[in-house]
């Protein structure tokens, strides 16, 4: 009870703090700061028409590398921690609908995922969403099957290879231009084409592979440890 009240008071006071520090309630007139810069020179600098991807992969590529590491650490940690606890019981058999769908859909889901990954610099999408889509196909397969998934060396290899590639691309930029993860080690090409925008498509691919394999790894660990004791 006391906790509820104290919690309410804290939350209300927080709202007061945030609201009171808003300077004015007008609408911003236009883009400001770096946002304006990105829209003006983004395509020239990176060759990517999707400016979000340009920012994610090119300008702030370090963030993305870090983000990959976040996901990597989390999946490693989850897998590591779950291997330490006793395995859960066999999963309950999936319904026939799930079992059927899991045989039909994954192929097209993976294809869609790959499309999103490869067109990240042209249209909404990129490595993260595409990788997540691919991982969802894996999840579906896993849900459809009644077996506990075994250790997948393939997943680990993909994950590791993708990560190392990302890192090496970074060093490549360092060697060529003295700038880690510089985009222009590959030609910018003509904006709007599939093979354009420097190493952005390559990095998207790498990220996609990494995200897909890592999320799949997490799913399968959950599945292995799941169930009540």
């Amino acid at each position, binding site marked *: 009870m006391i906790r509820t009240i104290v919690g309410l008071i804290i939350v209300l006071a927080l709202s007061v703090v945030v609201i009171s520090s808003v300077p004015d309630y007008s609408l911003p007139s236009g883009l400001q700061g770096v946002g*304006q810069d990105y829209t003006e020179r983004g395509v020239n600098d990176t060759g990517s028409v999707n400016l979000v991807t340009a920012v994610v992969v090119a300008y702030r590529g370090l963030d993305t590398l870090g983000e990959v590491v976040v996901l990597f650490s989390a999946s490693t940690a989850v897998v*590591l921690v779950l291997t330490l606890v006793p395995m859960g019981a066999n999963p309950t058999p999936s319904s026939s609908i799930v079992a059927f769908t899991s045989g039909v859909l994954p192929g097209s889901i993976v294809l869609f995922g790959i499309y999103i990954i490869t067109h990240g610099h042209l249209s909404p999408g990129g490595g993260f969403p595409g990788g997540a889509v691919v991982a969802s196909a894996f999840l579906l397969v896993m849900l459809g099957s009644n077996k506990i998934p075994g250790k997948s060396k393939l997943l680990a290899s993909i994950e590791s290879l993708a990560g190392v590639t990302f890192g090496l691309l970074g060093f490549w930029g360092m060697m060529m231009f003295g700038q880690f993860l510089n985009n222009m080690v590959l030609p910018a090409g003509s904006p709007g084409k599939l093979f354009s925008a420097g190493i952005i498509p390559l990095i998207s691919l790498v990220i996609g592979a990494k995200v897909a394999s890592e999320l799949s790894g997490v799913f399968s660990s959950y599945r292995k440890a799941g169930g009540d004791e």
Partner: protein
Amino acid sequence: MVKALAVFLPLLGAFVNAWLPSKSPRASRFVSYVVLVAGLLASVVLSIRLDAWDLKNLSDSVILSTGVGAPPLSINLEITAGGILAAVAMYAATIFSLHRFARTTPKSQPLILALLTASLGLIYSTDIFNSFVFLEIGSISTIGLTAACKCGSRWEAAIKAALVSGLVTILYLLAVATLYRSTGMLTLEALGLLSGGSAILVSILLLTVIVTEIKAFPLAGWGLDFYQGASSVVAGLYSATWSLAVLLWAAKVLPLLPIGNPIIYAWIGAAGLVFSQLAGLRASSSGRIMGYSTSAYASLLLVAAGTTTGSFYTQTVIVLMVFSSLAKFSLFMLGNPEKSDKWSGFGTIIFLVPVLLLAGIPPLPVFWAKFAFLAHLASNFPVIFYTVLTGLMLEAVYLFRFWSQRSERTNETNPYKPSAVSAVLIILLAGIWITKLSWGALDFSGAIIASSALRNVFHSLFAIGTLLCLPGVFKRIGREKNYWFWLLISGAALTILPAAGNGITFYLLWEFSAFAAVIAVSKGVRASRGTFWFAVFASLSGYLLLAGILLSGGSFAIAGLPAVLLTLAALVKMGQFGTHLWNVKAYPAAPGTIPAFLSGTSSKASVLLLVAVALSSTGGSLPWGRVIAWIGALTALTGAVLAAMAPDYKKMLAHASVSQLGYILMGLGLASILGWTAAFYHTIHHLIFKMALFLGAAGVLYRTGTSEFNNLGGLVKKMPWTFAFTLISVISFASIPPLAGFGSKWLLYNGLVEQGWLPVMIVGMFASVVAFLYSFRLLHGVFLGQLSPRNAHAKEAPLPLLIPQAILAVAIMVLGFKPTLLLNFLVPAIDAIPGLSGLAPIIQGDMVLTTMGTWNAWMVGLMVMGIFGFAFVFYWISGHKPKYVGQLDIGFAGEIPPSADEIHYSNNFFRPYKRALAFLPNINAEKIFSGVNKTFGMLGDAVRALFTGDGRTYLAHSLLFLLLLFVFLNGGM
């Protein structure tokens, strides 16, 4: 390229490692080592390129740019000289901890490497969102490692870290959004562009995040639980990499926050330091103690951020944080609760170095940083200075208790060797920095004591005293460990002490000597309590000395408060007036000849300090000389009474030692030529007889294995030489004419009468009478009376202990019969000091003349010897034969004695006097100090009640802290 390698190699290693363990654990370990060593090399190359080891311009940097374009569009990593030093430490710590992980959780290597990547990224990053990404990598790898490494409470530790990291994420992103919406940029510099409401919002959000992440009080709760619950390997790695990185990141961000006046950091830090260290006094788990120490350093960081700027700030922060993190790393790696704790003597020392480092004891590098930092505070922010000093003192107390508890559990096994190597590494690294930091700071010109004659007196006292303790060092009993090295160190530091030319040199040598002696005491059997009290009082006196020196601007030329602090430092060191607790605890616990060294030689350092203060402040007169004389007189009396009642040989000598030092205080307090002559004379005399007595006690202990009066007695037949030397010393300090003690009292009373301080003299004289009581008991209880059956096979003390006693006994004789040998040298030197009142005694041949009278020691000696000889011959001729009675031969009629102790004649020897004094209130120092201890404990309990152990409470703390900050900033700005 080297830059990129130094930062990103661990990352590549982590990715490679994710795949390898399933193939071959050895290959994976090999890759990790290759990557780490290469990264370390790259960092070292960079550090040399930046000239970082010079410690002069730690803010110098190289830029590693990433992505496309330049900031604010892209992100730069700024590799500062300070950061690269921290990085070297992080790499080294990771390399050293890897083998421990390889044994327990081999597949954790990717996480370890990710943690290192995050740490490096965080200290280099210049972008606020980029820092966030690294923060998250760090939290996730920490949580993962904690949960993966088997240890009792790992889940709870992990879940608390996860809760806090969740809250931090939300607050941080709110700050990022606000910053971006207001300025359109995400670089750290953009923080300076904020104004108005958004400035306050971003400041309080980020400050809350920082205080939570660095685990400063009051938001330290989760960190304490984390350190307590995580396995020691994880906690060790964490403190050397991630914790350090967060601290340095905070150090980078704090000055940039648009908070108005940064002094608020200092107040949060200073208050937090005191409160958290109060709570730390009550901590018992070693992990938790490390948590409190972390909190202390986090608070220090806040204080530094609030009070210093520029390169001084950087240097202070880097030295303090890097070394405290490394020290914690070593402690965690050494203190391995997963295995049974096994320590050899060597291990105890290896273990002590990090503790001393954390406590900021010279000459370790943390000391230099703390010293400069405190000096800065003392001259600019006095109130913060006192608060910080109090907090540091409290920290020292629990760190020493921690050490004494840990070293109690000793076994004869080697400590974990590679970890020992890591500690050695720290020492080496420390060595480089010590020379860098101390360069030019030390001064051995002897400027503090201008008179070279007096300096030489002290030089030779310390040197001779140490030398005389050395022959006996190998005559150890039972489980006493080797202590000669520390005796030598302590003695060497003392011997140099009079040459100190400025405050820092004096302080350095003083602490050096004190803590070498602390280690020496710890070598005794069951010495942990004694060592603890010694360490506590030694650091108390050290901190008083430090405060005095700093407040007087690094010199001794002062009056007022600094002089009082310095005087107090000396009094505590002497064990005067209540602080004798440490003497009484430490002397009996100390091994072999150490008590002789402490009481005879080391205690004279405080006389030196008093002389230095007196000479520097007002040319000879101590501040409140009369008060000091009274303190001396009262201590002389109470010490003598306590000595008479003591049940133990060494304890009695400890009380007696404190009591005798009181006479020196009376002389110094007089501030007259006669008084000072008496004080110096008595200083020398005290050194001689006290060393002889304690060396005799060491011999008795060596042969009988006990120092309790109940088990002694009748040893005169077994140890005639020891008896003879003890007798000479006793006659001397009881001030019976032919020997040296008479002269010191004669001079002193002359001085007191000359200045008209009669009440002081009466108390002093009364104390001398009580001294008869205990000197009699000493002789009687140990050497006379019946021999205890358990000592039937005792032999004469070994020569290495006897020969120094013989030398000292001869010295007493010489000093007694020919005091003019010394006075001829001493009186002119003291006469030359300006500002001392009264007339100098005149020396003519064997005669000493004062306005009060004359003293011809030679004649007096001959006369007394004549009378004594006559009495002896008379007794001998009379032919009385004593009747020998066994110790247990007592004829009570039909009474059954309750226990053997109570029928021993020396039990409760002075019961009648005790009964006569029964009307006095029963005050005793131990009770007072345990009362103080209890009070602090209660305060500590009150503070730590804040840390309920419920993870959500910690989150509520953070949010409340944020709200308070908001109220404060809106009220204050």
